[in-house]
């Protein structure tokens, strides 16, 4: 029993982080916002790094990794506010197809030739799918209206888990933006980040984020292992990550002051993605209800001896 993220896992996440920081900064978001929000060159870069095949078995040209690895990288996609549909296709769609034994498309996904629009009854739209276009508050999201009758619980869990993972990355990024702004914005003769009124709010965000992360990684492992309790852990992760991201978004705009209310400051891209993912793949209320059914409904063993029940 351990909660160790291996050096290999952390090193891969760091590599992806560095790559995205170098190729997908705020200036890229602004270019995409102005010129159309998908870019084949960015997608090809992700394919070349092997990320589209992260969960595809090696026999089909992938890396054959697991959901913990994918969750760590989904967090990096959140951190950089990635526009391309990597998480949906490679970290939600691939394991869902695999679970159903549908493996014929996997090689094409790994090679980056195919994306997987995911229709589910929990969402009133399909992201990056065909249909009447719907406009999201997040300028990087391409949504289409869809009659979704697929209520598959595994797909829902995968979607919720990877949304949670992106949300902790988004929260990290928003905290970082607020911290950097608080270091350089001067008022009353000092950086505003020297005021405890600012420090304490940002520290509270750090607490929420750092205690949401292990919930997400644990849920990823539980879902990877297909534990009977996995759905509860995924829901816990979605609630914790949502709360951390929304708290951090609201704190970050407050720390930015009036600048935070402008389109000019980058924060809004991350904030809008956080709003979108908070409601996607099951609202907070939906996931809290699943925790409720397990904890108060008595289907999950609780107490100190049941940490990993």
């Amino acid at each position, binding site marked *: 029993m351990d909660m160790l993220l291996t050096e290999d896992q952390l090193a891969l996440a760091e590599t992806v982080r560095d790559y995205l920081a170098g190729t997908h900064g705020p200036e890229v978001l602004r270019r995409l916002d102005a010129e159309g929000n998908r870019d084949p060159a960015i997608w090809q870069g992700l394919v070349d790094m092997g990320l589209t095949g992260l969960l595809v078995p090696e026999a089909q040209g992938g890396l054959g990794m697991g959901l913990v690895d994918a969750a760590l990288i989904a967090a990096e996609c959140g951190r950089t506010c990635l526009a391309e549909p990597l998480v949906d296709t490679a970290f939600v769609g691939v394991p869902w197809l695999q679970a159903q034994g549908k493996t014929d498309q996997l090689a094409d996904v790994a090679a980056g030739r195919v994306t997987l629009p995911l229709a589910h009854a929990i969402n009133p739209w399909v992201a990056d799918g065909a249909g009447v276009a719907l406009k999201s508050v997040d300028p990087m999201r391409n949504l289409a209206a869809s009659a979704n009758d697929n209520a598959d619980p595994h797909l829902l869990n995968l979607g919720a888990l990877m949304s949670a993972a992106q949300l902790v990355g988004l929260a990290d990024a928003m905290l970082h933006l607020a911290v950097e702004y608080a270091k350089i914005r001067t008022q009353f003769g000092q950086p505003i980040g020297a005021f405890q009124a600012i420090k304490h709010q940002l520290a509270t965000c750090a607490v929420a984020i750092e205690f949401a992360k292990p919930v997400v990684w644990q849920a990823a492992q539980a879902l990877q292992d297909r534990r009977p309790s996995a759905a509860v852990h995924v829901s*816990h992760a979605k609630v914790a990550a949502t709360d951390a991201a929304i708290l951090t978004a609201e704190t970050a705009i407050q720390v930015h002051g009036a600048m935070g209310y402008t389109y000019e400051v980058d924060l809004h891209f991350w904030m809008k993605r956080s709003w979108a993912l908070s409601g996607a793949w099951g609202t907070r209320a939906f996931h809290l209800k699943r925790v409720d059914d397990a904890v108060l409904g008595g289907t999950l063993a609780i107490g100190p001896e049941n940490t990993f029940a």
Partner: protein
Amino acid sequence: MHLECTPEQDAFRAEVRAWMEAHVPKEPLVTLECREGYDQHVEWERTLSSGNWGMVTWPEAYGGRGLDLIQWLIFEEEYFRAGGPNRANQNGIFLLGPTIMEFGTDEQKKRFLTPMAKGEVIWAQAWSEPGAGSDMAAISSKAVRDGDHYVITGQKTWSSRAAFADWGFGMFRTDPDSKRHKGLTFILFDINSPGITRRPIRQLHGDTGFAELFFDEVRVPVENCLAGEGEGWNVAMATAGFERGLMLRSPGRFQATAKRLVDLYRKHEAEASPAAREAVLQAWMAAQAYAYNTYAVAAKIMAGGKIGAEASLNKIFWSELDRSMHRTAMQLLGAHAELKRFDDGSVNQWLEGYIFSLSGPIYAGSNEVQRNITAERMLGLPRVGAG
């Protein structure tokens, strides 16, 4: 990452469970913060020691079991599952013991660690002074060298366990010309030494857990100094690290409280508000999050990593969680909440727990200080006003 126990871990858990079920007192002990309760808790320390369960993380050479951190977490889970009492020896186990192991001489290790492990000597901490609370570097109590002794004069306050404990540890200013973090020395002292007056402080619940200590030319042998004269701040920082870091409050304690809260909610479900229901679910989620995080930090330490600002995050998280769980319980209890004993004669543990939980965000470095540390050391925000 593995969510399954190894067969060895399962066997260890079963061993702890069997011993705890056979030995944990069936009736809750009287509060540790009065003479009768203190004596009961010291007796419990000796019972634990008789089964060699007193200092499980200590090396065997000092009377421990040399458990790794995962085994320690399993031990704690079972301890709180069984409803094990609070630890009278908390200051020794997690604060002073590890500090002596790191900084003490062989002679000091022999002299202090074994009696601590056996529950023969109970330790009080003596950090704060009237003018040095959150700002610990403002310490002014003096220790003046006189031959083979220090002569200590000054005052300590809010000393946990000091109303009844045998020995104490704290920092004293050995260099009269020094300022702030410099010139402080970490000294161990017998609280029954001539010249020490202890004045128990009545706490808001009416009992006396902590005390003031007055030092009037108290002679303490030089060999009671830990890690050399003037090294006090470095030693204390290591101690504060242990305390705030991983071991002061293990997750099992909060998971047990969350489970009791779920049971309480079920009893009061008919009249409970939706907000209380959500607060109960939040309690379970937060206690679990604290457990996952502690397992993650333990794994990191076992792989050779160190705790940094995470210690401050931890302290903020568990202390505010504890307070909110008890607040929720008080709301669920409604008009029963104020009763010190319920109709059936049982002690209102939620009331006692709520009052105790209010001290959590204050002691071991107030949460305001912890937020400053988080903001400055983890997030890199600028410091002001610190000298």
